[in-house]
Protein backbone atom coordinates (compact mmCIF):
# COMPACT_ATOMS: atom_id res chain seq x y z
CA UNK A 1 0.00 0.00 0.00
CA UNK A 2 2.77 2.42 0.88
CA UNK A 3 5.51 3.12 -1.60
CA UNK A 4 8.98 4.01 -0.50
CA UNK A 5 8.70 7.75 -0.41
CA UNK A 6 9.32 10.64 1.88
CA UNK A 7 5.92 10.17 3.55
CA UNK A 8 6.47 6.55 4.49
CA UNK A 9 8.25 7.18 7.79
CA UNK A 10 5.76 9.86 8.79
CA UNK A 11 2.81 7.62 8.08
CA UNK A 12 4.36 4.70 9.93
CA UNK A 13 4.94 6.91 12.98
CA UNK A 14 1.33 8.00 12.77
CA UNK A 15 0.25 4.35 12.62
CA UNK A 16 2.23 3.44 15.70
CA UNK A 17 0.77 6.29 17.67
CA UNK A 18 -2.73 5.32 16.56
CA UNK A 19 -1.98 1.71 17.44
CA UNK A 20 -0.83 2.62 20.95
CA UNK A 21 -3.97 4.71 21.53
CA UNK A 22 -6.19 1.94 20.23
CA UNK A 23 -4.45 -0.69 22.36
CA UNK A 24 -5.19 1.37 25.47
CA UNK A 25 -8.74 1.73 24.26
CA UNK A 26 -8.99 -2.06 24.32
CA UNK A 27 -7.12 -2.50 27.63
CA UNK A 28 -9.17 0.06 29.53
CA UNK A 29 -12.39 -1.83 29.12
CA UNK A 30 -15.79 -1.21 30.74
CA UNK A 31 -14.96 -3.67 33.49
CA UNK A 32 -11.89 -1.64 34.46
CA UNK A 33 -13.73 1.68 34.29
CA UNK A 34 -16.44 0.29 36.58
CA UNK A 35 -13.73 -0.83 39.02
CA UNK A 36 -12.08 2.58 38.79
CA UNK A 37 -15.29 4.37 39.71
CA UNK A 38 -16.87 1.97 42.17
CA UNK A 39 -13.95 -0.18 43.30
CA UNK A 40 -13.86 -3.94 43.46
CA UNK A 41 -13.84 -6.19 46.49
CA UNK A 42 -10.98 -8.59 47.02
CA UNK A 43 -10.07 -10.86 49.86
CA UNK A 44 -6.62 -9.94 51.19
CA UNK A 45 -3.83 -11.99 52.56
CA UNK A 46 -4.75 -11.18 56.18
CA UNK A 47 -8.25 -12.61 55.71
CA UNK A 48 -10.03 -9.26 55.47
CA UNK A 49 -11.96 -8.07 52.46
CA UNK A 50 -11.26 -4.59 51.18
CA UNK A 51 -12.64 -2.47 48.36
CA UNK A 52 -9.84 -1.56 45.98
CA UNK A 53 -9.88 1.45 43.69
CA UNK A 54 -7.24 1.24 40.96
CA UNK A 55 -5.43 4.52 40.35
CA UNK A 56 -2.73 5.20 37.80
CA UNK A 57 0.38 6.65 39.38
CA UNK A 58 3.07 6.37 36.78
CA UNK A 59 3.02 5.67 33.09
CA UNK A 60 6.33 5.57 31.33
CA UNK A 61 6.24 4.44 27.76
CA UNK A 62 7.21 5.37 24.27
CA UNK A 63 6.01 4.10 20.96
CA UNK A 64 8.85 2.92 18.77
CA UNK A 65 9.17 5.69 16.20
CA UNK A 66 11.49 3.88 13.86
Amino acid at each position, binding site marked *: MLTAGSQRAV*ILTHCRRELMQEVWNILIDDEFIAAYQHGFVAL*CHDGQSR*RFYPRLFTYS*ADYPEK
Partner: protein
Amino acid sequence: MPGLRTPSPSRSPPLTNAGRPGRYYRLPKRYDDLPPEPPAPLPPPTPVPVIRRVILHVRDTIRTSLNRFGLLREYPHRPSYDPDASLESEDLANWDASRTFEPSDSNPTARSFLPPWPFRNMSVFLLMEWLNSGSNLKSVGETDRLVNGVLRHPEFKASDFEGFSTHRENQRLDKADADAVGTPFSGDGWSTSAVHISVPTGQKDPTGTGHSFTIQGLHHRSLLGVLKAALADVSSKRFHFSPFKHFRVLSFGRKERCYDEVYTSDAFLQADDTLQKQKNELNCNLEKVVLGLMLWSDSTHLANFGNAKAWPIYLYFANLSKYIRAKPTSGSSHHIAYIPSVSVGI
Protein backbone atom coordinates in the same frame (compact mmCIF):
# COMPACT_ATOMS: atom_id res chain seq x y z
CA MET B 1 32.38 -5.16 61.15
CA PRO B 2 31.38 -7.58 63.89
CA GLY B 3 34.95 -8.59 64.73
CA LEU B 4 36.30 -5.15 65.57
CA ARG B 5 34.94 -3.66 68.74
CA THR B 6 35.67 -0.31 70.29
CA PRO B 7 37.83 -0.98 73.38
CA SER B 8 36.74 0.27 76.77
CA PRO B 9 38.92 3.24 77.69
CA SER B 10 39.50 2.09 81.31
CA ARG B 11 41.66 -0.90 80.37
CA SER B 12 45.24 -0.01 79.54
CA PRO B 13 46.44 -1.51 76.26
CA PRO B 14 48.85 -4.48 76.41
CA LEU B 15 52.54 -3.77 76.10
CA THR B 16 54.40 -4.45 72.90
CA ASN B 17 57.58 -6.55 72.73
CA ALA B 18 59.59 -3.37 73.10
CA GLY B 19 57.85 -2.62 76.39
CA ARG B 20 55.88 0.34 75.11
CA PRO B 21 52.16 0.54 75.46
CA GLY B 22 50.52 -0.93 72.39
CA ARG B 23 47.87 0.67 70.27
CA TYR B 24 44.35 -0.25 69.40
CA TYR B 25 43.62 -0.15 65.74
CA ARG B 26 40.07 0.37 64.74
CA LEU B 27 38.32 0.97 61.48
CA PRO B 28 37.14 4.48 60.62
CA LYS B 29 33.51 5.07 61.47
CA ARG B 30 32.45 5.16 57.85
CA TYR B 31 33.23 1.46 57.58
CA ASP B 32 30.79 0.58 60.36
CA ASP B 33 28.29 -1.76 58.80
CA LEU B 34 24.84 -1.19 60.19
CA PRO B 35 22.46 -3.97 59.27
CA PRO B 36 19.16 -2.62 57.96
CA GLU B 37 16.29 -2.45 60.38
CA PRO B 38 12.54 -2.57 59.83
CA PRO B 39 10.55 0.54 60.73
CA ALA B 40 9.44 0.94 64.33
CA PRO B 41 6.17 -0.89 65.07
CA LEU B 42 2.83 0.86 65.30
CA PRO B 43 1.75 1.93 68.79
CA PRO B 44 -1.06 -0.21 70.25
CA PRO B 45 -4.56 0.99 69.45
CA THR B 46 -6.21 3.27 71.98
CA PRO B 47 -9.98 3.19 72.39
CA VAL B 48 -11.43 6.08 70.41
CA PRO B 49 -14.72 7.58 71.60
CA VAL B 50 -17.37 6.84 69.02
CA ILE B 51 -18.71 10.06 67.56
CA ARG B 52 -22.05 9.80 65.85
CA ARG B 53 -23.31 11.94 62.99
CA VAL B 54 -20.00 13.36 61.95
CA ILE B 55 -19.93 15.71 59.02
CA LEU B 56 -16.31 16.70 59.20
CA HIS B 57 -13.68 14.13 58.33
CA VAL B 58 -12.04 12.90 61.50
CA ARG B 59 -8.42 11.96 61.25
CA ASP B 60 -6.72 9.79 63.79
CA THR B 61 -3.19 10.66 62.77
CA ILE B 62 -0.86 8.10 64.17
CA ARG B 63 2.87 8.28 64.53
CA THR B 64 5.34 5.50 65.25
CA SER B 65 8.48 5.84 67.32
CA LEU B 66 11.91 6.12 65.72
CA ASN B 67 13.94 3.20 64.52
CA ARG B 68 17.72 3.05 64.68
CA PHE B 69 18.11 5.30 61.65
CA GLY B 70 15.86 8.01 63.07
CA LEU B 71 12.97 7.18 60.73
CA LEU B 72 9.36 7.40 61.80
CA ARG B 73 6.10 6.83 59.98
CA GLU B 74 3.08 9.11 60.23
CA TYR B 75 -0.24 7.73 59.01
CA PRO B 76 -3.22 10.01 58.42
CA HIS B 77 -5.43 7.09 59.54
CA ARG B 78 -4.62 4.03 61.58
CA PRO B 79 -3.74 1.35 59.01
CA SER B 80 -5.69 -1.88 59.13
CA TYR B 81 -2.64 -3.85 58.11
CA ASP B 82 1.07 -3.20 58.50
CA PRO B 83 3.07 -5.27 56.01
CA ASP B 84 6.36 -4.15 57.56
CA ALA B 85 5.49 -5.68 60.93
CA SER B 86 6.56 -9.11 59.73
CA LEU B 87 9.78 -8.10 57.97
CA GLU B 88 12.68 -10.42 58.68
CA SER B 89 16.30 -9.37 58.42
CA GLU B 90 16.62 -11.53 55.32
CA ASP B 91 13.92 -9.42 53.64
CA LEU B 92 15.94 -6.29 54.27
CA ALA B 93 19.39 -7.46 53.23
CA ASN B 94 20.89 -10.18 51.14
CA TRP B 95 23.36 -10.65 53.96
CA ASP B 96 21.88 -12.23 57.06
CA ALA B 97 22.73 -9.90 59.94
CA SER B 98 21.82 -12.42 62.61
CA ARG B 99 24.03 -15.09 61.14
CA THR B 100 26.57 -16.57 63.52
CA PHE B 101 29.71 -18.32 62.49
CA GLU B 102 30.28 -21.81 63.77
CA PRO B 103 33.49 -22.49 65.60
CA SER B 104 35.86 -24.66 63.63
CA ASP B 105 36.61 -28.14 64.80
CA SER B 106 39.25 -27.77 67.52
CA ASN B 107 40.29 -31.40 67.78
CA PRO B 108 41.19 -32.65 64.31
CA THR B 109 42.57 -36.02 65.44
CA ALA B 110 39.25 -37.27 66.82
CA ARG B 111 37.36 -36.47 63.63
CA SER B 112 35.31 -39.13 61.96
CA PHE B 113 35.02 -39.32 58.21
CA LEU B 114 31.75 -41.26 58.21
CA PRO B 115 28.65 -39.89 56.49
CA PRO B 116 27.56 -36.70 57.79
CA TRP B 117 31.20 -35.62 57.35
CA PRO B 118 31.99 -32.93 56.30
CA PHE B 119 28.50 -31.64 56.97
CA ARG B 120 26.70 -30.93 60.23
CA ASN B 121 24.10 -33.65 60.08
CA MET B 122 22.51 -36.29 57.92
CA SER B 123 19.82 -33.99 56.43
CA VAL B 124 22.41 -31.56 55.11
CA PHE B 125 24.51 -34.47 53.91
CA LEU B 126 21.66 -36.02 51.92
CA LEU B 127 20.74 -32.69 50.35
CA MET B 128 24.32 -31.84 49.39
CA GLU B 129 24.78 -35.30 47.95
CA TRP B 130 21.64 -34.82 45.86
CA LEU B 131 22.88 -31.40 44.71
CA ASN B 132 26.28 -32.66 43.62
CA SER B 133 25.05 -35.79 41.85
CA GLY B 134 22.65 -36.55 39.02
CA SER B 135 21.77 -33.70 36.67
CA ASN B 136 24.01 -30.64 36.86
CA LEU B 137 21.07 -28.30 36.28
CA LYS B 138 20.54 -27.74 40.01
CA SER B 139 21.95 -24.39 40.97
CA VAL B 140 23.19 -23.24 44.36
CA GLY B 141 20.56 -20.51 44.46
CA GLU B 142 17.72 -22.89 43.66
CA THR B 143 18.91 -25.29 46.35
CA ASP B 144 18.90 -22.46 48.89
CA ARG B 145 15.39 -21.67 47.73
CA LEU B 146 14.38 -25.30 48.20
CA VAL B 147 15.76 -25.41 51.73
CA ASN B 148 14.53 -22.02 52.92
CA GLY B 149 11.20 -21.99 51.11
CA VAL B 150 10.15 -25.63 51.23
CA LEU B 151 12.07 -27.89 53.60
CA ARG B 152 12.13 -25.37 56.45
CA HIS B 153 8.51 -24.32 55.94
CA PRO B 154 6.49 -25.04 59.10
CA GLU B 155 3.81 -26.81 57.06
CA PHE B 156 6.27 -29.08 55.29
CA LYS B 157 5.91 -32.74 56.26
CA ALA B 158 7.93 -35.47 54.62
CA SER B 159 5.07 -37.91 55.31
CA ASP B 160 2.81 -35.98 52.89
CA PHE B 161 4.81 -37.37 49.99
CA GLU B 162 3.41 -40.90 50.20
CA GLY B 163 3.15 -42.12 46.58
CA PHE B 164 4.20 -38.72 45.17
CA SER B 165 4.74 -38.30 41.45
CA THR B 166 5.87 -34.97 39.99
CA HIS B 167 4.27 -35.81 36.66
CA ARG B 168 0.86 -36.47 38.19
CA GLU B 169 0.93 -33.30 40.32
CA ASN B 170 1.85 -31.23 37.27
CA GLN B 171 -1.13 -32.68 35.43
CA ARG B 172 -3.35 -31.76 38.36
CA LEU B 173 -2.09 -28.16 38.19
CA ASP B 174 -2.68 -27.94 34.45
CA LYS B 175 -6.18 -29.30 34.86
CA ALA B 176 -6.98 -26.82 37.64
CA ASP B 177 -5.72 -24.01 35.42
CA ALA B 178 -7.81 -25.16 32.46
CA ASP B 179 -11.19 -25.46 34.19
CA ALA B 180 -10.69 -22.67 36.66
CA VAL B 181 -14.02 -20.93 37.16
CA GLY B 182 -14.36 -18.92 40.31
CA THR B 183 -10.79 -19.38 41.45
CA PRO B 184 -8.87 -16.16 42.07
CA PHE B 185 -6.82 -16.77 38.95
CA SER B 186 -9.66 -17.21 36.49
CA GLY B 187 -10.11 -14.25 34.23
CA ASP B 188 -6.49 -13.21 33.96
CA GLY B 189 -5.74 -15.39 30.96
CA TRP B 190 -4.59 -14.12 27.61
CA SER B 191 -6.85 -13.17 24.75
CA THR B 192 -6.11 -11.99 21.24
CA SER B 193 -7.71 -9.03 19.51
CA ALA B 194 -7.39 -7.16 16.26
CA VAL B 195 -6.73 -3.42 16.39
CA HIS B 196 -8.36 -1.05 13.92
CA ILE B 197 -6.57 2.19 13.13
CA SER B 198 -7.23 4.79 10.48
CA VAL B 199 -4.48 5.77 8.09
CA PRO B 200 -4.45 8.83 5.82
CA THR B 201 -4.12 7.82 2.19
CA GLY B 202 -3.34 11.18 0.61
CA GLN B 203 -6.53 11.07 -1.45
CA LYS B 204 -9.48 13.36 -0.86
CA ASP B 205 -11.81 11.79 1.66
CA PRO B 206 -15.09 13.60 2.34
CA THR B 207 -15.79 11.52 5.49
CA GLY B 208 -12.45 12.52 7.02
CA THR B 209 -11.90 9.15 8.65
CA GLY B 210 -9.06 7.95 6.48
CA HIS B 211 -8.49 4.42 5.37
CA SER B 212 -9.26 1.87 8.06
CA PHE B 213 -6.49 -0.57 8.62
CA THR B 214 -6.56 -3.70 10.74
CA ILE B 215 -3.58 -4.99 12.69
CA GLN B 216 -3.95 -8.54 13.87
CA GLY B 217 -2.46 -10.19 16.90
CA LEU B 218 -2.72 -7.96 19.97
CA HIS B 219 -2.24 -10.28 22.93
CA HIS B 220 -3.67 -8.86 26.11
CA ARG B 221 -5.13 -9.73 29.49
CA SER B 222 -8.06 -8.23 31.29
CA LEU B 223 -6.71 -5.46 33.55
CA LEU B 224 -9.20 -6.21 36.31
CA GLY B 225 -8.40 -9.91 36.12
CA VAL B 226 -4.71 -9.13 36.59
CA LEU B 227 -5.47 -6.89 39.57
CA LYS B 228 -7.59 -9.55 41.24
CA ALA B 229 -5.01 -12.25 40.63
CA ALA B 230 -2.24 -10.04 42.02
CA LEU B 231 -4.19 -9.43 45.22
CA ALA B 232 -4.67 -13.16 45.65
CA ASP B 233 -0.98 -13.77 45.11
CA VAL B 234 1.32 -14.29 48.07
CA SER B 235 3.29 -11.11 47.30
CA SER B 236 0.23 -9.06 48.30
CA LYS B 237 1.04 -9.63 51.96
CA ARG B 238 3.75 -6.99 51.44
CA PHE B 239 1.25 -4.49 49.99
CA HIS B 240 0.84 -1.21 51.83
CA PHE B 241 -2.86 -0.43 51.92
CA SER B 242 -2.52 2.83 53.83
CA PRO B 243 -0.16 5.57 52.70
CA PHE B 244 1.97 7.37 55.27
CA LYS B 245 4.54 10.11 55.56
CA HIS B 246 8.07 9.08 56.31
CA PHE B 247 10.10 11.41 58.49
CA ARG B 248 13.69 11.40 59.56
CA VAL B 249 14.33 13.15 62.84
CA LEU B 250 17.60 15.03 62.76
CA SER B 251 19.84 15.29 65.80
CA PHE B 252 18.62 18.76 66.75
CA GLY B 253 14.97 17.78 66.70
CA ARG B 254 14.04 19.02 63.25
CA LYS B 255 12.01 16.66 61.09
CA GLU B 256 12.89 16.02 57.51
CA ARG B 257 10.45 14.39 55.12
CA CYS B 258 11.74 11.26 53.39
CA TYR B 259 10.39 10.59 49.93
CA ASP B 260 11.28 6.98 49.40
CA GLU B 261 8.27 5.05 48.16
CA VAL B 262 5.17 5.73 46.09
CA TYR B 263 2.98 5.07 49.13
CA THR B 264 4.82 7.78 51.09
CA SER B 265 4.43 10.36 48.33
CA ASP B 266 2.06 13.30 48.36
CA ALA B 267 0.33 12.00 45.23
CA PHE B 268 -0.61 8.75 46.97
CA LEU B 269 -1.67 10.50 50.18
CA GLN B 270 -3.83 12.86 48.18
CA ALA B 271 -5.39 10.03 46.17
CA ASP B 272 -6.14 8.20 49.41
CA ASP B 273 -7.59 11.32 51.01
CA THR B 274 -9.88 11.93 48.04
CA LEU B 275 -10.98 8.29 48.12
CA GLN B 276 -11.74 8.32 51.86
CA LYS B 277 -13.94 11.38 51.35
CA GLN B 278 -15.75 9.69 48.49
CA LYS B 279 -19.13 8.20 49.38
CA ASN B 280 -19.17 4.51 50.20
CA GLU B 281 -20.78 2.17 47.74
CA LEU B 282 -24.32 1.19 48.65
CA ASN B 283 -24.40 -1.28 51.58
CA CYS B 284 -20.65 -1.55 51.67
CA ASN B 285 -18.63 -0.69 54.73
CA LEU B 286 -15.41 -2.29 53.62
CA GLU B 287 -12.20 -0.34 53.91
CA LYS B 288 -11.48 1.68 50.76
CA VAL B 289 -7.98 1.22 49.48
CA VAL B 290 -6.08 2.90 46.66
CA LEU B 291 -4.45 0.32 44.43
CA GLY B 292 -1.61 2.17 42.74
CA LEU B 293 -0.84 1.08 39.20
CA MET B 294 2.48 1.79 37.54
CA LEU B 295 2.54 1.09 33.83
CA TRP B 296 5.60 0.72 31.76
CA SER B 297 6.18 -0.06 28.14
CA ASP B 298 9.09 -0.14 25.78
CA SER B 299 9.94 -2.28 22.83
CA THR B 300 12.45 -4.97 23.65
CA HIS B 301 14.96 -6.89 21.62
CA LEU B 302 14.67 -10.56 22.41
CA ALA B 303 17.94 -11.74 20.90
CA ASN B 304 21.45 -10.48 20.49
CA PHE B 305 21.38 -11.43 16.81
CA GLY B 306 18.47 -11.06 14.45
CA ASN B 307 15.45 -8.79 14.92
CA ALA B 308 13.20 -10.77 17.21
CA LYS B 309 11.34 -7.99 18.98
CA ALA B 310 8.51 -7.67 21.45
CA TRP B 311 6.56 -4.63 22.54
CA PRO B 312 5.15 -5.41 25.97
CA ILE B 313 3.18 -3.36 28.48
CA TYR B 314 4.04 -4.13 32.08
CA LEU B 315 2.12 -3.39 35.22
CA TYR B 316 3.64 -2.89 38.66
CA PHE B 317 1.91 -2.06 41.92
CA ALA B 318 2.77 1.13 43.75
CA ASN B 319 1.59 -0.44 47.02
CA LEU B 320 4.64 -2.67 46.98
CA SER B 321 7.98 -1.38 48.24
CA LYS B 322 10.46 -0.50 45.54
CA TYR B 323 12.99 -2.81 47.19
CA ILE B 324 10.71 -5.75 46.44
CA ARG B 325 9.34 -4.41 43.17
CA ALA B 326 12.76 -3.93 41.61
CA LYS B 327 13.99 -7.43 42.43
CA PRO B 328 13.99 -9.51 39.27
CA THR B 329 13.00 -12.64 41.20
CA SER B 330 10.12 -11.11 43.14
CA GLY B 331 7.55 -11.77 40.39
CA SER B 332 5.99 -8.36 40.93
CA SER B 333 5.93 -7.37 37.27
CA HIS B 334 2.73 -8.32 35.49
CA HIS B 335 2.64 -8.29 31.73
CA ILE B 336 -0.70 -7.19 30.42
CA ALA B 337 -0.23 -6.80 26.67
CA TYR B 338 2.04 -7.56 23.75
CA ILE B 339 1.53 -5.07 20.95
CA PRO B 340 1.90 -6.29 17.38
CA SER B 341 4.27 -4.58 15.01
CA VAL B 342 2.82 -2.18 12.43
CA SER B 343 5.34 -2.67 9.69
CA VAL B 344 4.43 -6.34 9.29
CA GLY B 345 1.18 -5.51 7.54
CA ILE B 346 2.08 -2.42 5.53
